[in-house]
Every structure is written in structure tokens, then in C-alpha cells.
């Protein structure tokens, strides 16, 4: 399918560019996979750093490269801690369900704190033109935002989910800074509802598509007497297991496509209502990927993953990111070259003993 990119050619347009190629990412992914398997997962922390550096390093905004500086040690520490807590939670179930409930509750209560830690780590270790991004949200504010968001969800039985999403996102964005530039989230509740309806419709559409595909394969299988062949080879009843596996794979593919579309569609609305405030001027972010493009993208992604038993994952990831980034730009009259980061901020972020001790990547 030929996709025309209507990138606006305007003077105040600062486009995103994505230059990663699939072959290189395949090599990176395979190397990471091998070393992760051989080290029983320990290498996954290094793998994450390499993937982030590859993807961000190939992303440019206004000609400036992004980069990632997370230390594998910090990520490994975070992952081991999370794994230990998860195992504790699993094991506690067999000792006493009350303890398990208590631990689950504690994890729930810690979620805002975790979100702040994860954002702080991620942004402090991401740079644009070697200027570090920064998250300056306080934990107290995080609790306020998250509790508000949870209460909104619970008391409306999830009906006000756009408001709940916006409350959380507004907190996270307005504390995300690059130098004196700061992100802001505008109101877009009506648009989010529309996008939600769109997601439901797309899920139905995908259901019809995968249902038709499954039905077709079944018909063909019947026509060539596949069940009899399989039962003959592997014993009677074995076709049933094949059927179950096939249905499971189709369901997984459907879920993958639907969730992928939903995420991108909701993100499109949120991004189109996000602004970057710089020197009193407001830059708009625009994401103009078309609905048709998104529908086709996630359908073909799911089909590729299904047919390749997951081996198409690097291809899927690169083309999804490319589709997303080629349709995003920043509009505004301001000059990103005027950005200034305070150096003492940097020193604070690096030199704080406690922050260093607590330097964990809890975002997975």
C-alpha cells in the first residue's frame, strides 16, 4: 500500500526523522536475544540500553539527535528488585492469601511513587543534542494526581476514563522539561471519547478480518482432509490440540492488532493536544497519521507476527515507529537553539548521594 506522506513544508515546522533500518535492528535484536538467553536474562539490562540508544540515536528533531545514557547496572538493579518483589508476591499466596492481598495493596499504593521514579530515570537519561531532559515532578503531587485519577475512574465506573487519563498525563507532561521548554497537555475529552468509539469499531473490524481468515483456513484444511491426516499421524484427538493452538494464535493476533491500534489512536489525540511551551511561546505538536494507515499497519503487523511465529517482531517495531515518527512534527515560531539548561541542575541530578543509591530503573 502506497502511503503518501503529506509532510507540511512550512518555515515553522520542525519535523521528526527516523533513520533506523530493519536489517541493523534485526542484528541488534538477535545479538541481544542470544546474550540474554546465555546469561539467563542478566544481559537484558544491557540489551535495553543498546536498543534505546539505537532507536533514540536514529531519531532526530530539527536535525538534532536524541540519545540514551541509562546505565545497565541501574536497570539490572531495578529489574532484580521488581523480580524479587514479584516472586515474593507469588510465593506469599501459598503462605497466606491475606499477606498476598496486603502486598498487592502496598504495590498499588506505591504506584505513583514508582511512576515518578521511572519518569525521573527515563528523562534524566534521555538527551536531545546531548542536553538532558528532566522530570521535576514531586512525589506528593504525583499522589494527588493519581488519587484524583483513580477516584474519577472508580466513581464513574470507568465512564470518565478520558478525564482520568488526562489528569495523570497532565501531571507527567507538565513536569517534563528540556532546558526552559516544558510540555503541556490541553483538554481533549470529547476527542478521546470519539477515539474510544473508534477503537471499539476497529476491534470489531479486526474481529471480522481474523474471523474470515480463520474460517478460510479451516475450509481449506477440511478440503485437503487435514484433520484426518493429522489424526492419522499423531493419534486420534490430536487435531483438537491443533485447533486449540490455532484459535489461540488467532485470538492473540486479534488482541495485538486491536491494542496496537487503540494505543496509537489514543496517542494521536493526546499528541495533537500537547504543546511545548518555550520562552512564552507555545509550539504545537501535530500527528497527522491517517486512520486508514493505522488500521492497515496494525492488521499487517499482527498477520506478520502470526505467520512468522513472532520472528517478524524487529520489522514490526521499526515500521511502527517509522510510521509514527514520520507523521509527527513540532510547529511554532520559537527557536530551539535558544534552549538553555542550568548546569547546576545537572550536577544535582548526578551528584546526589541518595539519588545515586536509589538510582533504579523501575519502568521495566
Amino acid at each position, binding site marked *: 500500500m502506497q502511503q503518501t506522506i503529506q509532510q507540511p513544508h512550512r518555515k515553522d515546522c520542525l519535523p521528526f526523522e527516523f533513520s533506523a533500518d530493519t536489517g*541493523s535492528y534485526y*542484528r*541488534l535484536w*538477535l*545479538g*541481544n536475544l*542470544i*546474550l*540474554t*538467553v*546465555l546469561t*539467563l*536474562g542478566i544481559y*537484558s539490562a*544491557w540489551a535495553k540500553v*543498546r536498543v534505546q*540508544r*539505537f532507536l533514540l*540515536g*536514529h531519531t532526530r528533531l530539527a536535525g*538534532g539527535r536524541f*540519545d540514551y*545514557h541509562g546505565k*545497565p547496572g541501574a536497570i539490572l538493579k531495578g*529489574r532484580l528488585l521488581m*523480580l524479587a518483589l*514479584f516472586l515474593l508476591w*507469588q510465593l506469599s499466596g501459598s503462605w497466606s492469601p491475606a499477606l498476598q492481598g496486603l502486598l498487592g495493596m502496598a504495590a498499588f499504593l506505591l504506584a505513583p511513587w514508582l511512576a515518578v521514579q521511572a519518569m525521573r530515570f527515563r528523562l534524566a537519561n534521555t538527551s*536531545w*543534542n*546531548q*542536553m*538532558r531532559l528532566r522530570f521535576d515532578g514531586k512525589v506528593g503531587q504525583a499522589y494527588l494526581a493519581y488519587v484524583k485519577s483513580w477516584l474519577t475512574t472508580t466513581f464513574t465506573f470507568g465512564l470518565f476514563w478520558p478525564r482520568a487519563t488526562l489528569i495523570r498525563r497532565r501531571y507527567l507532561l507538565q513536569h517534563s522539561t528540556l*532546558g526552559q521548554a516544558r510540555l503541556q497537555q490541553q483538554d481533549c475529552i470529547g476527542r478521546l471519547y470519539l477515539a474510544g468509539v473508534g477503537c471499539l469499531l476497529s476491534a470489531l473490524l479486526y474481529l471480522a478480518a481474523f474471523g474470515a481468515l480463520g474460517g478460510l483456513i479451516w475450509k481449506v484444511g477440511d478440503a485437503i482432509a487435514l484433520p484426518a491426516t493429522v489424526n492419522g499421524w499423531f*493419534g*486420534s*484427538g490430536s487435531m483438537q490440540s491443533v485447533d486449540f*493452538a490455532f484459535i*489461540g494464535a488467532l485470538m*492473540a493476533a486479534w488482541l495485538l492488532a486491536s491494542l496496537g491500534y487503540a494505543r496509537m489512536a489514543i496517542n494521536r489525540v493526546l499528541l495533537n493536544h500537547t504543546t511545548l511551551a518555550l520562552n512564552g511561546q507555545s509550539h504545537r505538536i501535530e500527528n497527522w497519521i491517517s486512520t486508514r494507515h493505522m488500521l492497515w499497519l496494525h492488521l499487517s503487523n499482527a498477520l506478520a507476527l502470526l505467520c512468522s511465529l*513472532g520472528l517478524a517482531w524487529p520489522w514490526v517495531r521499526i515500521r511502527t515507529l517509522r510510521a509514527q515518527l514520520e507523521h509527527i512534527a513540532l510547529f511554532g515560531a520559537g527557536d*530551539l*537553539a535558544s*534552549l*538553555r*539548561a*542550568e*548546569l547546576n541542575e*545537572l*550536577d544535582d541530578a548526578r551528584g546526589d548521594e541518595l539519588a545515586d543509591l536509589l538510582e533504579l530503573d523501575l519502568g*521495566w
Partner: protein
Amino acid sequence: MVTITAWWRDGKSPQAHAANVGRSEDELIVSNGNDSRRYWLADVRLEAGVDTLPDVLHLPDGSTLEVADRLAIRRLIGGLPLAERSSHWLQQSWRVLLGALLAAIAICWTAWRYGLPLLAGVLVQWVPVGTEQQLATHTLQWLQQNELLQPSRLPATQQQALQTRLATLLPAHSRYHYQVLLRDAPPIGPNAFALPGGTIVVTDQLLRIINRPDELAAILAHEAGHVEGRHSLRSAVENLGVLAALTLITGDASSLTLALPVALANASYSREHEREADSFAFAALRRQGLSPCLLGYGLQRIEKEVRSDRAANPDQHSWFASHPATSDRSQPDGQRCPPPA
């Protein structure tokens, strides 16, 4: 002096300035037109570029140098950090990558085929008999609560006879105290299974099919082989090992994608245990002056029954799923058995 061109950024603003990088003794020299700065090499940190991306040098004052000529800069500062070297080497060519992939597969296969069973065998030796018996008690209770096992409908003398027969088949100094339990189990069908610690459950349904005492003895000996080999505990350790390894690798325990590899690995382990129990039974039968072919005859009878049962009811779970093909097992140690009388 070698000089390398680089982009210098101060880390506070996005502007990049062209700079030349050189080295003298233990110092890095960054010259920017007329201005020149010196940094101790020990304070400079290199972030190696992934794939084709440039290297970045982090200088102690928070500024950075972006260097496109990666070979030159790595040579200049004395090579990559050790941790980064292996992954860079691994990634440089498809041939190296495929070689590593094959090596990884071989290592995983060896660990799964030999490493984990060996480890399980060593680990279970530390489990006291009392613990094994406790486990068996729990399992029995569970089976009874779920009405999979019910009291036998056959006379109590049958169970006594089985118990006596089993005693003659056991090795002289077993650490286990054996107990045969005869139970009615319509959901399980014709079967005998060993619980850890020396409990062997025989179903009424099995006794109905196999009325030759010698074949029954062969099946009892096979189950005793499971007990002596501590196969229940070993399976538990092996299954847990496979699950733990896959969880560590993928970082996700609840994923449905793990179910299939775990199930496949476990089926293979249990086939191995069946073979071990078979050879235990063959040896026990020979000591009694009986033919090792008896086990195969008994199993064939069960298989025939299960087959006819399954033909009538194809949803039934198969007893033979975890067992080697019965035709293989009727050839103890490679010798052919005459057809059963």
C-alpha cells in the same frame, strides 16, 4: 599527533561546535579553533555507538564529543570497555551472529538435556523421606477430595496380595517403606501410579484388565522404579527449573507463550523417567527369574483397553501421552519378545 574531528557540545545548549581531539600522554586534548582544553583520560567516559551510530565521549565538565570515526577514537583512548567489547564483536557480522546463535542453542539444549536432570538428581538427595511421605499424603487427600479416587470395590485380600508380591520385587536395602493402595478410580481408568515416599496406587480398573499376577508384578516393579528414582521430586525440580529459566530469559512468568515450551520440556523429562523405571522393572523381574517381557505384555493390554475406550470417547485424556511408545518398551534391552501367550 593524531587528531580526530568531532562535534563538541557543552550539554547546556543544543549548539554543536567543530573540534579536534588528540592525545598527549594521559591527557585528552580538545581544541576548538584557538581555544584548547585538556582532560585526564581516566575521567573521560566513552559511550560506544550502537550499530552505525557515532561514539560519544563524556567529559568531566558535562560536555560531550560526538565522534563519527569510531575506530580512530577507540584506538586513541585505548579501546572499548570490556563489557561493551563482546556485544560489539557479536554484532559486527551476520556470520558471527549465526555462529553465536548456534552455540546458544547448543548450550541451552545441553543444559536442558543433561544439566538440569543432573542438578535435579543431586538436589533431591537432600530431601528426607518424611517430606516425601508428607507430599504423598497431600496428593492422596487432594485426589480423594476431588473424587478421583474412591475406596476399592474389590476384596481387601487383593490389596494384601499386591503388597506381598511387591515386597519380593524390591531391592534388599530400600530407604522406603512401601505401601500398595487399591482404589476405585473411574475417571482415571486402568492405571497404577507411584507417589513419593513409597505409596503405589493401583486402580480396580487395572486389576480387571490384567489378571495375570506376573504382569501385575511387572507393573508394580515399574512403579517401584519411580519411587526409588525419586521421579516425582525430580520432575518437580526439573519443571521448576525450565519455568525459572524461561521466566528469567523473557522476564515474564504469566505469559501464555511459555506454556508450550514448558509442557514440551516436561513431557521429555517424564519420558526419560519412564525409561529409567522400565529398566528398574526389567532388573527386578530378572532377579525373580521372570521374563522382562512381562512389562510389555501388561502395558499392551492397558493400551488396547485405553484405545478401545478412547475410540468410544475421544475426549479422554491419554495415559500414554507421557510414556514411550509401548512397542519400544516391549523390547527390553533390545531383545525381541515373543507374542504374549
